[in-house]
């Protein structure tokens, strides 16, 4: 039975708004190697934007440019209209950009709860003296962090492992915890670097559901990197396709799917 027909009205809780992040003619080189060449695209508020491309297309470099780990040699990045000269990871975080990593970068020896609470470092102000002497400020912030973390734990359905050390969790759950840590910072823009890499079908479905739910419940703008086209096409609003550091496609999934250059790139036709 098709349930959606019974649901009246808008299917989107947050309507897609104007561009929140604009990338203008970005080029990035490592020594003589060109990682990205003259790439421009934008990301609109509340949308799910995918960056896809075969391995080595420069997808991760793209995300690293957005959150300031790499500084491009040419081009500029504007976040909410503000030009970002030298973006640093810290600055990006302060502006509301969170991310996950392709190879899980969790705090391995900490518990799930601590990982997620650690994600709120910018939302807390207590100094080490506050913490040491358990001042009211420290206690209040600790409580807020815990409440927020618990909300995320419930959201991601990981109640039964909240006090488990993350290193002991299976891969799929670790990916989920990493998403949780990124959410803890209450980001405006969430960068997900291959959130479904190495997962089985069931885990991928779960992850898709969580990504959609994040977008739907919090209105978070999401940039998603994947090399597996299938999943991405189902959940993203617009897709950028990279190949050898160049942009070869940009648009809604159906349109990109029909793009000859994209098809060639994925089928490995010689350039």
């Amino acid at each position, binding site marked *: 039975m098709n*349930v959606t027909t019974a*649901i*009246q*009205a*808008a299917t989107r809780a947050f309507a897609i708004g104007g561009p929140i992040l604009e990338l203008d003619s970005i080029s990035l080189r490592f020594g003589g190697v060109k990682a990205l060449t003259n790439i421009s695209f934008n990301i609109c508020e509340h949308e799910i934007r995918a960056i896809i491309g075969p391995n080595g297309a420069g997808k991760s470099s793209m995300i690293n440019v957005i959150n300031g780990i790499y500084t491009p040699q040419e081009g500029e990045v504007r976040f909410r209209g503000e030009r970002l000269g030298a973006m640093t990871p810290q600055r990006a975080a302060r502006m509301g950009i969170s991310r996950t990593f392709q190879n899980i970068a969790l705090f391995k020896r900490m518990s799930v709860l601590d990982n997620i609470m650690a994600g709120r470092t910018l939302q807390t102000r207590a100094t080490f003296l506050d913490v040491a002497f358990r001042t009211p400020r420290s206690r209040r912030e600790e409580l807020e962090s815990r409440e927020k973390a*618990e909300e995320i734990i419930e959201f991601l359905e990981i109640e039964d492992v909240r006090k488990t050390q993350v290193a002991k969790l299976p891969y799929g759950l670790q990916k989920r915890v990493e998403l949780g840590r990124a959410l803890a910072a209450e980001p405006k823009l969430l960068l997900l670097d291959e959130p479904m890499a190495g997962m089985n079908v069931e885990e991928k479905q779960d992850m898709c559901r969580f990504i959609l739910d994040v977008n739907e*419940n919090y209105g978070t703008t999401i940039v998603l990197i994947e090399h597996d086209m299938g999943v991405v096409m189902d959940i993203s609003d617009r897709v950028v396709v990279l190949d050898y550091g160049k942009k070869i496609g940009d648009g809604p999934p159906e349109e990109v799917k029909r793009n000859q250059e994209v098809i060639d790139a994925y089928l490995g036709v010689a350039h």
Partner: protein
Amino acid sequence: MQSVGTGATTGARRSAPRGEALPQHAAGSGETFARLLRSNASRLADRPAYREKHRGIWRTTTWRALARDVDILAAALAGRGLKRGDHVAFLGENRPRLYAGVAAAHALGAVAMPLFPDATGPEIAPMLRLAGVTHAFVEDQEQVDKLLAILPECPALRCIVYDRERSMRPYRNPELVSYAALVEEGRAAAERSGDLVSRAIEAGDGGDAAFVFLNSGASGASHAAVLSHGGLIARARAAAAAERLSPADSTIAYLPPGWMGQAIFAYAQPMAVGYCVCCPESSETLLSDMREIAPTCFLTTPRMLDTIFSQVALRMEAAGGVNLALFNRAVALARRLGRRRLAGEPVGAAERMSAALYDAVVYGPLRDALGMSRVKVAYTSGDAVDPSILAFFRALGVNLKQLYGTTESGFLVAIQRDGAVRPDTVGAPLDGVETRISPDGEILVRAEGLFLGYLGDGDGRSVDAEGWLRTGDLGSLGADGQLRVADRAGDIGVLACGAAFAPRPIENRIKASPYVREAVVVGDGRDGVIALIDVNTTSVGRWADTHEIAFSGHRDLAGQDRVYDLVAGVLADINAELARDPATAPCVVRRFALLPEELSADDGVLTRTGKIRRTVFAQRFAPLIEAAYAGRSSASLAAREAEGSMAAGVDEVKIRDAALAPADRRAA
């Protein structure tokens, strides 16, 4: 269709009108749940009524807060058109908010209809239509979707209250309102309407219908039985008095609220006694939540006990060494002492001392690990329990008892009393309950608190003119006043050789093995008994891992020869036991097969409480049963449709002969 539904609803309402001249009504005390709540709020005030583990910690709702919330909810529901005699459906897990909704419905004189949260839309649609349900409390988006999908079939349903807001943002249906929003509405409504709720509570009568429960339908289709406030309260009180329960007690609620037993122990009895109900965080955290909360009384099912017992056995096996040796000695001693105490034989000082020692070293820590260290009383109900499992928990010092009752008879009919917990009886009838055995061996019950009737079927009450209810269970009443239940009247059979055949005791023995999840034995009118067994994937999987057997899932595991060997060993021991008693000797299991798929309630083979529907089972597995009796060594079975769009395949299921004696004896 719609007119039929409405008509049926009206009929149902008429079947249980206030003040109808029924004997049990005449004795009604006039107490209602709404009035109990008010009195609890002033009497118990800041004592906990409900605790719920939510987001990592236990959140408490006191009786005072509960009463306040219920008043607000009731005002809001009244504002949304809920009237006396309307029906309200509940679809969700045990949550304080769900029970607050029940209480709010009761305050307005409406009837609560808790449903099984995992029931499918098509399963519940006829019930909603039959009762003419107007309002529903549901847990989350999943349940909302379920109801929205059947909305066209249930025109009376006009208000759906959902608890969790997650992913509900895009929904714009006018029927929907969140629990939080409803509370807001209620605050405003309460100011406007003044003492509307109080007046509604005063207008309530003990004889009013309080709940509609679906009976298990183990013997066929489910019926919706109506039960009254007064009847439920009287029974709850009688049972509480027998156990001396008080407001200081607490229970844990983890069974589906749609099951009458859970509704009684998570709502009716707490209301009547004032003890606290604790709701676990999720089914995954149940055991650890149970350990944290350590309830003093709780209701469980043989299936749950089975699971816990298997887990204990496996974990002890894994511990091995001294731990296992101590454990085995301790349990053996406790069983021995238990038998002697029951038989009234004296227990020596030396044995009493070693029991005390074992209590410090084994029983106590185990009770603690299981969260049963504070249990005053635990009931198992819903089905017969394997005597050895009952004895095991009692050996640990957990006061586990059997409780007998059916939906129609008000659930609380007989309970075992302290000092008289015999494995073969279900105890003595409660105060105010009369039992009798009909000439054809069926148990009859007469008491206050029998059901008022089935919804939509006014004549379907199996209560005779003198007020005796036919329970449908065969049994006997001993001179000691103890009630014994044989089996469902329809299940007892006769083998082709003429020997009597009761399937459930045999099944329970097979299920007591940690490797078996479910077992069904067939034999009525046949040459000997065969067993169809659903293996426990978790424990057999672990066993396979330690024996370096590769497998890819349940289907694969259940098809492995070595797993057949494993189960054959289990059956050999049981057969040896059966063969020892001349009465059961003809019932030894001759052949068996392992089922390729886990039995599930979704395809109707099990009821929602996990009981076997034998007729459905027999149909589903007919080819296998026939092949077994035909002496073939395998059978083809249409595989259940896999999730998704995969085409249904065919399973080739092996059938084996069971050994009639234990393996070691065979070897010798």
